[in-house]
């Protein structure tokens, strides 16, 4: 997800009451392994599922590998990065 997110970033997420929108970064459970939480960008939403893609397609494991992610797997939306200090800012 670089450059939007980097390893070690501290993120505030908010649980979502509406379906995610295209372009938002969401926190979702990996459909292959629900224990694994991942942050990906929403590329499309249709039929109760969304296509999640990493910002760097050549290095990302995303919906191209694990298929559309059911909306039930989408836990939250990324709102704000509060650390490291130099990178503090909104994520939408």
């Amino acid at each position, binding site marked *: 997800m*670089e450059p939007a997110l980097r*390893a070690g970033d501290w993120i505030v997420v908010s649980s979502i009451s509406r379906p995610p929108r295209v372009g938002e970064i969401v926190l979702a459970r*990996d459909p*292959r392994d629900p224990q694994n*939480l991942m*942050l990906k960008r929403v590329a499309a939403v249709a039929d109760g599922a969304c296509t999640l893609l*990493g910002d760097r397609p050549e*290095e990302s494991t995303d919906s191209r590998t694990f298929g559309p992610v059911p909306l039930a797997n989408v836990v939250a939306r990324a709102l704000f990065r509060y650390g490291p200090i130099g990178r503090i800012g909104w994520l939408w």
Partner: protein
Amino acid sequence: MFLTRVLKPTVTASAHCDLPCGVYDPEQARIEAESCYKIIEKYNASNDEQFKTRAIVIKEERAELAKHHIDVLWSDYFKPEHVQKNPEITELCWKAAKQCSKVKGSLDLAEAKTLLDMIDKIADVWTKAGGPQATRVAKAAAARA
């Protein structure tokens, strides 16, 4: 520092998963299963105890590798849409993985043949799902001839 400890997130999410090469082919499992088949043949034809011991060790290793490759196909290659179109794939992979364990502990050629047939059935689904075009790098025309 106290503040850092309080602010530090407690849940970790990955934004950068593994790096799959995207190459999947049941042939990889088949070659290991063929090794098991041939090793059992050679085992049965031999009177050399040392050779027979080595044959068993290597067969067990190959059976484990076949199981690994089947597992990778099942967990990484086949997607929900493949399962929707070919619901038998889950059972095929599951049974083939179990058959690998059987071959691992057996010197019965028929068990090794059963495993080959099972892998071929998985390969049929892989081919139907467009696996050859989707996952393999095309060979040069000269190499195919």
